[in-house]
């Protein structure tokens, strides 16, 4: 069925289709309409789930955790300060290897207080052991939520997944979305039945303590699972394609990368604008390409290397900043490309903070700047675009 949905409605539709059984939620802009929509579904009887109206985001994740260990499929959503408030629970859930899906409608962190999009909230949670997938469209938000349930519960992964969608640009902007049939989704996503769950006949402990002798082993297995997730994310995407004839390439989504001298790397909805700019510059004969990073954790080092080896300059646009250094993605891409026999130069840009629009002109400017650097054979200096934050 084709429907006119915004990103948040697409996520809600996916959660219903995934037959989530327990939803624990606390409102925060721009996520709120996801959990409002789910509440409506439950109220009108079109979705059968327990809705826990918690008193905070911290409690939302704790309730999801408590519910998930009983063997239920759970969902929550948040943004910005709410995600920051959940922070303590994030490694708890991932360390306990509890699969669940959380939508993050990305938004900048205060102060200054803001409700608009950037990636600082989710990026700040980079090392909490959650898989992070960034989507470009409402359609992809829906599809990725369905994929995420499968990835999270894969027996060799057992790791929670954040599906990140840019606030407003995706969360509140409508597009035509193909909403799959329930039967088709049921075939793709069977009910969640974990091997271990709360059971008075088999009394397990969930969330054990571990001393210095054993703690590292738990962390080692967690790291192995995350590395394994790279392949699983791709497998699930292929499987999804077989069921629904749509694919997002798994970990990375390259666009004209094969022969580009300058490749721009972005995450999230900016990719839509960037595609237009690539098309425009290609028509002008410029060898430019785009690489959309879909999976930020696990970080797809191999796929990035494969897609970027031909580039002379890799421009990285961060919607975040690691204060005192640079954009986080820029650092990560540099690290991923280090050690290649022929290394492209990496030029980091920071833009779109706190909802500042990233225009076609901004992106064309980055491309031109880097094409110029290729001609001059220098690095292409790092800078801040579309802000007053010029050096």
């Amino acid at each position, binding site marked *: 069925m084709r429907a006119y949905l915004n990103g948040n409605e697409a996520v809600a539709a996916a959660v219903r289709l995934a037959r989530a*059984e*327990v939803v*624990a939620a606390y409102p925060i802009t721009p996520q709120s309409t996801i959990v409002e929509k789910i509440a409506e579904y439950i109220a009108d009887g079109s979705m059968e789930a*327990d809705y*826990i*109206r*918690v*008193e*905070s985001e*911290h*409690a*939302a994740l*704790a*309730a*999801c*955790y*408590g*519910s*998930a*260990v*009983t*063997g*239920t499929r*759970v969902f929550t959503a948040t943004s910005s300060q709410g995600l920051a408030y959940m922070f*303590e*629970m994030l490694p*708890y859930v991932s360390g306990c290897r509890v699969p669940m899906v959380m939508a993050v409608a990305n938004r900048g962190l205060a102060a200054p207080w803001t409700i608009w999009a950037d990636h600082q909230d989710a990026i700040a949670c980079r090392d909490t052991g959650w898989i992070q997938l960034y989507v470009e469209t409402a359609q992809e938000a829906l599809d990725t939520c369905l994929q995420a349930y499968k990835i999270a519960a894969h027996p060799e992964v057992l790791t929670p997944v954040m599906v990140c969608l840019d606030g407003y640009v995706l969360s509140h902007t409508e597009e035509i979305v193909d909403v799959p049939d329930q039967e088709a989704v049921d075939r793709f996503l069977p009910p969640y039945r974990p091997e271990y*769950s*709360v*059971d*008075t006949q*088999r*009394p*397990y*402990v*969930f*969330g*054990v*303590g*571990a*001393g210095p002798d*054993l703690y590292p082993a738990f962390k080692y297995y967690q790291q192995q699972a995350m590395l394994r997730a790279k392949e699983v994310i791709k497998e699930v995407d292929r499987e999804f394609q077989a069921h629904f004839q749509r694919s997002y390439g798994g970990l990375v989504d390259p666009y004209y990368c094969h022969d580009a001298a300058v490749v721009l790397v972005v995450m999230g909805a900016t990719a839509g604008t960037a595609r237009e700019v690539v098309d425009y510059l290609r028509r002008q004969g410029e060898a430019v390409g785009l690489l959309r990073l879909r999976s930020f954790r696990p970080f797809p080092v191999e796929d990035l290397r494969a897609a970027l080896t031909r580039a002379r300059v890799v421009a990285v646009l961060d919607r975040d900043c690691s204060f005192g250094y640079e954009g986080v993605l820029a650092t990560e891409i540099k690290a991923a490309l280090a050690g290649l026999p022929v290394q492209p130069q990496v030029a980091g840009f920071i833009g779109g903070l706190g909802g500042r629009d990233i225009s076609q002109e901004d992106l064309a400017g980055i491309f031109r700047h880097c094409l110029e650097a290729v001609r001059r054979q220098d690095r292409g200096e790092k800078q801040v675009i579309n802000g007053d934050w010029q050096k």
Partner: protein
Amino acid sequence: MVKIKELPDVELVQGSYACAGCGGILAVRMALKVLGPETVIVTTPSCLLGVTTFYPQLAFKVPCVNVTFPSTAAAVSGVVAGLKCRGKKGVRVVGLAGDGGTVDIGLQALSGAIERGDNFIFICYDNEAYMNTGVQRSGATPLGARTTTTPVGSVGRGEERPKKDMLGIVAAHNIPYAATASIGYPQDYLTKVQKAMQVEGPAYIQVLSPCPPGWGYPSELTVKLARLAVQTGQWPLAEYENGRLTVKEIAHRRPLRDYLAPQARFAHLPG
């Protein structure tokens, strides 16, 4: 009324690393004898977790869900909802937290869960300070008590504020059942646990659980002090039921000195 003699021999918590004379582990052990094996406990980093669930140890013979310090009651709500989804009826969900995890950092989540009316029992084993981290004061520390964050010195005179009235706070939520208890009065305590089991909706029990290293007394005095707290009027045995508060009468009140004198945490108080 629980008959102590009729309680089962079987232990549902066994093999813990608790200090000798720990009132907290005694409170949990006793409660589980009444709660029985069809119980899921939800705990939080605390002495209780520290002494019962360090991998591969499992002192509980019932499923145990550990969660972050502020979130015991929120995770309880999740377990309750999850068991309902799984169609598992007749399993009791019991939150267990110390006083810090209840009256301080855990208060918001507890308030939320009570207000939602979820069906659970919350037992606070109250040892009147953060014992697991080395005896820092909590909102449940009584006036005058010496702790490592309310030390006694040329200026400091121990805890400066009276103990938080948690029963009053919980009762203000219109909770169906709430009570205070003491491990020194097992029959009273266990009868309250039994009553809590029969309640539809949330039930709260705060049980005084003396702590030898934290309070500074020899291990064998735990039960005696738990009784003296009641007999000297320091720890009223109260029950809040159907909107009414009742407090157990004390026939022969003992002098306060009897309770304070054996405890190092009150040693600085004038005799």
